[in-house]
């Protein structure tokens, strides 16, 4: 590569201009949604991100729904039957999963479900066999299973623990005693009094963690070659694809902010005390 060619590339990227000017250009481009060209694929960053965003939404979205549902369920069941066999096992399991690194969990699932039992594909999002319709949907789901389970296992412990401790706290509140005294069946005490109140702090924490899940899917997506934002980030960092890295991190930050906002809005919806303030 000749020095002329290098100068040409620097000029094309605007790297020959003074730094303050580069910054102004960057700020202007960012605010107008122009993130430049990926150094690696020569496509616009917007295209690259648009291609990666839906796989991540599918993966993170399904994993979040499943882990929230089962995490909250296990937390509620554990707290309500505090000290029971279910409670001690689920608490132990939660602590183990909570502290297990996702990459490691992914490897374990790979070794069990792919290497040993041959049940699921080891990576990617589809089999690339040109199938359509239902067969294609099922194919994608089969590829989704392991990365999704990895994320679910990674997050379910946290949700279980948060929900459990939150509910335990609420169970000691006077209004739970009031409900019991009223002759309200146990199931209803839990459902209409204890859980709605325990959900308030839990949901806030769950929402906060959503914002970070996008970034947290980097490892899982890299392990399973899932073509989402996480894998894009992983590769962009490896290749020093600055434009992609900048755009992706901006997106992650926006996600954190958006989910914090969503948490606040939801909190207002769930808690009348906040709604009016």
């Amino acid at each position, binding site marked *: 590569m000749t020095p002329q060619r290098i100068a040409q590339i620097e000029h094309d990227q605007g790297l020959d201009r003074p730094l303050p000017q580069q910054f102004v250009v960057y700020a202007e481009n960012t605010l107008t949604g122009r993130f430049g060209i990926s150094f690696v694929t020569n496509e616009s960053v917007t295209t690259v991100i648009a291609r990666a965003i839906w796989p991540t939404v599918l993966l993170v979205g399904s994993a979040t729904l499943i882990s929230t549902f089962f995490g909250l369920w296990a937390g509620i069941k554990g707290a309500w039957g505090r000290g029971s066999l279910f409670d001690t096992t689920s608490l132990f399991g939660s602590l183990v999963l909570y502290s297990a690194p996702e990459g490691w969990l992914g490897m374990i699932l790979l070794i069990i479900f792919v290497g040993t039992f041959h049940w699921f594909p080891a990576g990617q999002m589809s089999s690339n066999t040109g199938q359509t319709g239902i067969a294609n949907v099922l194919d994608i789901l089969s590829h989704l299973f392991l990365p999704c389970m990895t994320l679910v296992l990674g997050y379910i412990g946290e949700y279980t623990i948060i929900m459990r401790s939150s509910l335990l706290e609420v169970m000691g*509140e*006077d*209004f739970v*005693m*009031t*409900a*019991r*005294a*009223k*002759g*309200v*069946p146990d199931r*209803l005490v839990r459902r*209409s*009094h204890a859980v*709605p*109140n325990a959900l*308030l702090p839990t949901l806030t924490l769950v929402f906060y963690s959503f914002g970070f899940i996008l970034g947290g899917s980097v490892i899982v997506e890299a392990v399973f070659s899932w073509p989402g934002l996480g894998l894009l980030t992983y590769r962009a960092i490896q290749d020093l694809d600055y434009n992609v890295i900048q755009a992706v991190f901006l997106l992650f930050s926006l996600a954190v902010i958006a989910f914090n906002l969503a948490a606040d809005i939801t909190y207002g919806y*769930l*808690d*009348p*005390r906040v709604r*009016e303030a």
Partner: protein
Amino acid sequence: MSVLSVRDLGIEYQTTGGGVPAVRGVDLEVDRGEVLGLAGESGCGKSTIAGAILRLLPVKTRITGRIELDGNDILELTPGKLRAVRWTAGSIVFQGAMHAMNPVQRIGEQIMEPILVHGQSGEREARIRAGTLLEQVGLPTRRLDDYPHELSGGQKQRIMIAMALACSPSLIVADEPTTALDVMVQAQVLQLLRTLQHDLGLALLFITHDLSVLVEVADRLAIMYAGKIVEQGGAEAVFHSPAHPYTKALAAAFPAIGDMRFRGRPSGLGGDPPDPQQIPSGCPFHPRCAEVTPACSSVTPELWTAGPARLAACVHVSGAPALEGVSR
């Protein structure tokens, strides 16, 4: 016939540090239309009794004796039956209305809940009944759609009373209903309770540490110390001429406004109530008693006659057996 009859009630909480006897052989009777005041210091076991009446205590708690509420043997009921009895035979006005209501549920729903749960009426009728109850406790019907945090302390306590009335129970247990309120509001709530009790002919078990409140509301008084009743009798009589030194101390701790005797020297009671796990021998009150005698640490006093329709557990009362060195 009595609405509530408690016989030889013993309650022992189970903790990791062993059993904690909170109530040790208590007998109580509340008749229809009667107000029984139950008084004592914090930790004497009076709120435990309130919880026991609807069997709301922690599952592991050991309860002995017998509680009969509106003809139901509470301690022997199956869980289903017990649930049916709760709030219909007896309801509770909890202390601290602040926390006794679900903060994310509209108060209308909270009042309607027991009506619906016990199948006393459909949703629409329940709502009408809830509105009526609100009016009965002096609040406008539109408050049904408010959340607890939108109400003042006094209003919340009124709501608690309305809630307690929802299923027209035979007995209402009012557990420190006015403790957290300022004096003016306290007076209004007391007034309300008394009016309702009178109008509806309710049996009311009124629990408080504030003797001066009780004397205004109660027909009879029972004073508790260290898990036992130490004095019983007509409200006026017990308050104005206490037989037990503990009652005396308790009554003296609340100055009667305008009474010259209290001026300048509000009297208190020294020391702390005994640790339930280490109750002193003999009379449990003797380490703090102003009239203690050498016999007090060895003789365990029972509720002896202390005058007409009066009982007191003290060696000094007239019904006590003669003991050496004890003056009457």
